[in-house]
């Protein structure tokens, strides 16, 4: 596209001419340039020049003759730079209104200008430059000026540059005038041409095309794209019809001209379509263009001109598509909308056109080469073609003759033209052009992630580099793109790429690359049957892919590596050879394409082996090379180098040289034959004697094929071996790498050498469940049964059974030991007493859940034991792992260690469950206001009355399965709540009984609580229970520490408040049938207020009662009111006292005694209670307190 002149590439730009007052030209032209669309300015300083510019050249005398060309080459340029649409004459106001001489000059200049502009129909504008706004212009003169200029009053513009705002105004005014007049001019011109087309007033078809073209260009000037498009298409159509009929020029040049014009017209049409966003139309248009000119090859000697032209069409269209923004946005919708048009996705992509442009350029090159080779004497032609140049018409060439000053064109005949074109063609480096085109296509495809098309382009690039002799770059490209073909199994395409790559390596003298490519080619799955029609030439340097070709490549390599023959490369100095000074080493790993050359699979026959025992290992080799390959020597390498061994070929006894220099005590095996037959496993089985425990892995196999050629091949396990990527699609016999098919499926190249059987006993004493808080002892016993123990180490590990850590990081769980729930405290050794100073060293490392202890030397028969002290902070089951590592032989430093493992699950349990209960004294009820309110609320706190005695009952239940001995139970008041806030006294000093708690039994103790502070959250302190395991409980004695354990339980906070009223019911402890007793109801007012209390007493069938049934009474502040009733029981047994209901008016709170509190036992007669007397008394005292 760049080779087109600018006036063709860009839409036409209107041209304005400014004459006179040159000082103001830059400002005006700057403004016009910045317009949208811009305008060009032809600035002329004075009026004398304008005539020369505007004068129309005289028409050629024979105007009636058919013209000698279709389009003039410079017509577009002429309208861009020389023929203005509007001429603006600028006069300064001083001159206009100046003295008569100046006025006369103005008039003359104006007349001249008019005379020059009129024949061309150019529009005229008069600008009067007013140097300052103060200047007044003579009105008469202005009118006179306008009349003289013969212009409409609006085309007489006053230009005021002095003031910024006025300047802007003037410029805008000017611009409007110019745009309007330019449009008129181009419309008039266009209309003139159009009438000629419509009236068919033209003498020849060439003129018809030219007029159409002009109409279209004028329409473009006016931005009338629709009309422009219509006339371009019309011109194109007429031109296409002209091909068969025109006889004006010699045939070759005639076609060349038509194609050139067609190219221009096509370019214009495509540009207009694409800029209008009509991408489908543009592509369809291009397709038609391509179809109608593709076959117009022309004369055989000029055929390359056609290909060049075709290539240019594609290139230009590709570039147009690329620059058109519409392309990328709408492409998907476009294809979706038009499934039936037969357009495919790729036709909307520039890459497609670049690729074809390159393709046609290749065609051009090859036909140019043929044309050049047909020339007898090229130099002679060069001389003749010198003076040929493009002539006045588009697509025409003529001889340039110098006749004195003047230049004139002389038509040339076809032969001359061909010579000229050939010399032009020779000047271009087509290869680089082709590479550039393919590259653009390739990049475009890569951006779209279209690999395969991209790689086809890449391959073409590589071939071009190959042709121009840039082998390094070419090889790089070939190798890159071979990868894709290899991946997808396109063997033929891979063969082609490898063939080129191989040739490049050969030319570059790169032996390794050459051998690699050759071996890969030789091992490709190419069979001869389906390549029947691949021509030799097409396949590049490698020839057609076939079995004989593979064999010959293989043979060549065999000869090369055996040193018999060096392959000659192009440069004599770069002979390819493999010699002592130039050895060759190839590496084949798990992803190498050379795996089909040599595949090594190693399988141990067993998965594990005891130390010292021997096992079998099978080494299998497979090659897909077409000829049988003889291996001289194989070296098998292991991860432990002392196992490495070498296999030599018995048939070649002379070649026993070492592959790797090094250890002398190398194991050497001899195999009867080491020949690799195509697609047949070579299986070799050897015995391996294991020595050390651990992992033994076969790493690699090194095959030596000639005196200086080795292949390093990574060993693969048959179980995890992938098939050969290219061969897996082939229909071939597949065999197992080992004789035993099961081994072929499960075989591994790794074997585990086990450690020796331990002959030491490790025992963990089972001591049942552990209790939270105590130091739990687990005895560990080690008995050396059959081994001495040297440098023994005991590893101890505590692991949570449920898998979670033993560790709690939660803030809500306060714990003393960094959140550890279970902790290994220490290891106490039984045998260490004698050497206590060493103890610190022996306990190497004790952490919360991990311990490491060294064991002293033990002879056979010795025992050793220790105790692990573990403490639980939370009830949690724990797994205890103990492992002993030792070496049975003391003298060897790096001797193998033997390990014994033991584990034990230990439950952690809570020893006791502590609970508490608050009680109020019997038959005494304070009115607690918070209790009334808290009916609906979820009040956690227990409420206690202030200054009243409440009773706290603490109980501890043994939840274990062993009896516990309780030593003491007391309440520890928190430090922050001083003793004055609350008084807690034990109800009795000593324990009720011995304190032995059998499993499930509960221990209780009673305390009296007198709160002394009115607080809603009063801390009650902590219950402390001191206990230990009961010593009488059997086997555990040995492992339980004698110390008692303190279990703490925090009491919840209580709510203390002052009770305004307290009600006490008083009656004797029992009644006797028929014996009257007094029933007191005492209401104690603790407030400073008068309390009104309503009371009522219900009748009871069991009693006869005296006293008021109901009423209201007033209780004075800080005083007590007593209601008393006399009751006579009528029946015996437990009886309900008459029901009392009290209501405090102030608090609107009612009170009813509970059933318990209002029950009395009535004896039939007076009882004799001597034995129970003491206990009765105590109960009374408690109640009294």
């Amino acid at each position, binding site marked *: 596209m760049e080779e087109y002149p600018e006036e063709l590439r860009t839409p036409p730009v209107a041209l304005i001419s400014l004459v006179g007052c040159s000082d103001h030209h830059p400002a005006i032209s700057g403004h016009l340039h910045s317009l949208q669309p811009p305008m060009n300015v032809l600035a002329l300083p004075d009026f004398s020049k304008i005539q020369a510019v505007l004068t129309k050249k005289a028409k050629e005398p024979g105007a009636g003759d058919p013209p000698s060309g279709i389009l003039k080459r410079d017509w577009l340029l002429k309208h861009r730079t020389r023929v203005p649409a509007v001429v603006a004459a600028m006069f300064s106001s001083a001159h206009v209104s100046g003295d008569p001489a100046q006025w006369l000059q103005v008039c003359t200049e104006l007349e001249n200008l008019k005379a020059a502009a009129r024949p061309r129909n150019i529009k005229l504008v008069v600008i009067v430059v007013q140097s300052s706004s103060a200047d007044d212009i003579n009105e008469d003169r202005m009118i006179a000026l306008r009349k003289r200029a013969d212009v409409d009053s609006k085309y007489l513009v006053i230009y005021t540059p002095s003031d910024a705002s006025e300047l802007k105004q003037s410029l805008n005014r000017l611009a409007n005038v110019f745009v309007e007049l330019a449009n008129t001019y181009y419309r008039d011109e266009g209309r003139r041409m159009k009438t000629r087309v419509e009236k068919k007033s033209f003498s020849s078809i060439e003129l018809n095309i030219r007029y159409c073209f002009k109409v279209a260009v004028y329409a473009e000037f006016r931005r009338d794209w629709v009309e422009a498009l219509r006339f371009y298409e019309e011109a194109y159509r007429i031109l296409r019809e002209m091909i068969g009929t025109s006889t004006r020029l010699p045939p070759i040049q005639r076609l060349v001209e038509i194609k050139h014009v067609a190219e221009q017209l096509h370019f214009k049409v495509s540009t207009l379509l694409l800029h209008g966003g009509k991408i489908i139309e543009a592509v369809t248009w291009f397709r038609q263009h391509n179809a109608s000119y593709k076959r117009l090859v022309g004369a055989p000697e000029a055929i390359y001109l056609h290909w060049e032209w075709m290539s240019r069409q594609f290139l230009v269209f590709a570039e147009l598509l690329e620059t058109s923004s519409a392309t990328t946005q709408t492409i998907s919708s476009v294809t979706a909308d038009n499934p039936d048009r037969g357009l495919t996705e790729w*036709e909307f992509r520039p890459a497609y056109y670049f690729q074809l442009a390159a393709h046609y350029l290749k065609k051009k090159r090859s036909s140019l080469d043929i044309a050049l080779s047909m020339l007898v004497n090229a130099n002679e032609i060069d001389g003749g073609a010198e003076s040929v140049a493009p002539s006045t018409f588009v697509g025409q060439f003529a001889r340039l003759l110098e006749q004195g000053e003047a230049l004139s064109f002389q038509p040339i005949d076809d032969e001359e033209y061909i010579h000229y074109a050939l010399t032009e063609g020779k000047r271009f480096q087509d290869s680089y052009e082709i590479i550039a085109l393919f590259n653009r296509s390739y990049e475009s495809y890569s951006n779209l992630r279209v690999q395969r098309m991209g790689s*086809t382009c890449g391959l073409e690039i590589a071939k071009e580099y190959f042709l121009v002799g840039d082998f390094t770059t070419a090889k790089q490209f070939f190798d890159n793109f071979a990868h894709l073909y290899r991946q997808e199994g396109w063997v033929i395409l891979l063969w082609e790429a490898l063939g080129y790559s191989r040739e490049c390596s050969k030319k570059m003298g790169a032996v390794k690359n050459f051998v690699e490519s050759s071996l890969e080619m030789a091992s490709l799955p190419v069979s001869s049957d389906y390549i029947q*029609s*691949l021509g030799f030439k097409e396949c590049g340097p490698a020839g057609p892919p076939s079995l004989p070709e593979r064999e010959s490549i293989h043979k060549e390599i065999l000869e090369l590596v055996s040193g018999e023959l060096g392959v000659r490369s192009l440069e004599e100095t770069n002979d390819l050879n493999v010699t002592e000074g130039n050895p060759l080493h190839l590496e084949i790993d798990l992803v190498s394409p050379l795996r089909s050359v040599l595949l090594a699979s190693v399988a141990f026959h067993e998965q594990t082996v005891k130390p010292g025992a021997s096992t079998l290992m099978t080494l299998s080799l497979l090659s897909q090379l077409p000829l049988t390959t003889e291996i001289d020597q194989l070296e098998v390498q292991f991860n432990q180098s002392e196992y490495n061994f070498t296999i030599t070929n018995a048939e070649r006894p002379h070649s026993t040289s070492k592959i790797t220099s090094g250890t002398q005590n190398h194991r050497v095996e001899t195999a009867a034959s080491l020949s690799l037959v195509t697609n047949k496993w070579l299986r070799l089985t050897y015995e391996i004697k294991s020595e050390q425990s651990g992992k033994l892995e076969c790493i690699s196999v090194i095959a030596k094929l000639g005196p200086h050629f080795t292949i390093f091949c990574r060993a693969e396990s048959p179980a995890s071996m992938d098939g050969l990527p290219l061969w897996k*699609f082939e229909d071939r016999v597949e065999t197992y790498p080992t004789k035993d098919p099961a081994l072929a499926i499960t075989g591994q190249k790794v074997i585990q050498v086990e450690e020796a059987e331990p002959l030491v006993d490790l025992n963990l004493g089972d001591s049942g469940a552990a209790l939270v808080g105590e130091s739990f002892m687990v005895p560990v016993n080690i008995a050396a049964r059959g081994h001495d123990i040297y440098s023994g180490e005991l590893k101890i590990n505590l692991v949570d059974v449920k898998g979670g850590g033993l560790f709690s990081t939660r803030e809500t769980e306060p714990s003393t030991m960094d959140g550890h729930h279970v902790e290994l405290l220490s290891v106490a050794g039984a045998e260490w007493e004698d050497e206590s100073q060493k103890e610190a060293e022996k306990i190497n490392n004790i952490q919360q859940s991990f311990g490491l202890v060294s064991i002293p030397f033990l002879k056979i028969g010795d025992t050793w034991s220790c105790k692990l002290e573990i403490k639980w902070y939370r009830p949690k089951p724990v797994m205890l792992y103990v492992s002993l590592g030792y070496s049975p032989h003391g003298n060897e430093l790096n001797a193998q260690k033997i390990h014994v493992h033991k584990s034990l699950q230990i439950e952690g349990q809570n020893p006791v469950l502590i609970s508490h209960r608050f009680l109020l004294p019997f038959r005494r009820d304070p009115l607690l206001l918070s209790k009334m309110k808290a009916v609906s609320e979820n009040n956690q706190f227990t409420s206690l009355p202030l200054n009243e005695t409440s009773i706290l009952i603490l109980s501890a239940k043994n939840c274990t399965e062993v009896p516990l001995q309780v030593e003491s139970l007391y309440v520890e008041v928190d430090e922050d709540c001083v003793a004055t806030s609350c008084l807690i006294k034990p109800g009795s000093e000593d324990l009720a009984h011995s304190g032995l708690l059998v499993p499930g039994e509960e221990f209780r103790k009673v305390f009296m609580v007198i709160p002394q502070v009115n607080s809603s959250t009063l801390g009650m302190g902590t219950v402390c229970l001191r206990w230990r395991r009961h010593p009488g409980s059997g086997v555990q004695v040995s492992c339980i520490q004698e110390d008692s354990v303190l279990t703490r339980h925090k009491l919840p906070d209580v709510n203390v408040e002052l009770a305004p009223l307290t009600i006490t019911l008083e009656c004797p402890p029992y009644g006797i049938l028929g014996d009257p007793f007094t029933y007191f109801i005492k209401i104690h007012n603790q407030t400073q207020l008068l309390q009104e209390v309503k009371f009522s007493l219900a009748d009871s069938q069991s009693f006869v009662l005296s006293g008021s049934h109901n009423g209201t009474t007033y209780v004075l502040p800080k005083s007590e009111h007593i209601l008393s009733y006399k009751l006579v029981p009528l029946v015996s047994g437990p009886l309900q006292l008459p029901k009392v209901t009290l209501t405090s008016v102030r608090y609107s709170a009612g009170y009813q005694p509970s059933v318990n509190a209002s029950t009395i036992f009535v004896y039939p007669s007076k009882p004799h209670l001597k034995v129970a007397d003491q206990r009765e008394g105590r109960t009374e005292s408690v109640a009294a307190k």
Partner: protein
Amino acid sequence: MIVCVAVVGHQNNPLYIQSFTEADDALKLHHIVHCSLDVIDERVNNPKKSGPLLNETFLGLLYPTENYKVYGYLTNTKVKFILVTTDLDVKDADVRNFFRRFHAAYGDAVSNPFHVPGKKITSRTFAESVSTIVKAFGLSSAG
């Protein structure tokens, strides 16, 4: 005239490729078939583009090259059939018909108990039937 037919497997590996030209352009046909896989990928990965052609085995014209037209067909088992023809004016119905017969022949070939799925098709019978179908296509489009 049909110049090349191909069967391409799941991994875009060629299972069967046969050209029917006298000229030395078999390799070029290989390239064309290989490149057309890009178009199939694109069509399969962006099914909305094909709109009403969803669930349709016939993929239509894949792409026009300089002198050839390439048509594609995708079986339910994601095996691709590719047809390269030099006829520039081909009726879709003819191509569909061709592919239907080709698919049947392919089905017969892979139903052979000795054929391993995923491997190249080496059956001679298949080659013969393909060549019959190809010849028949030439006749029908000519007539």
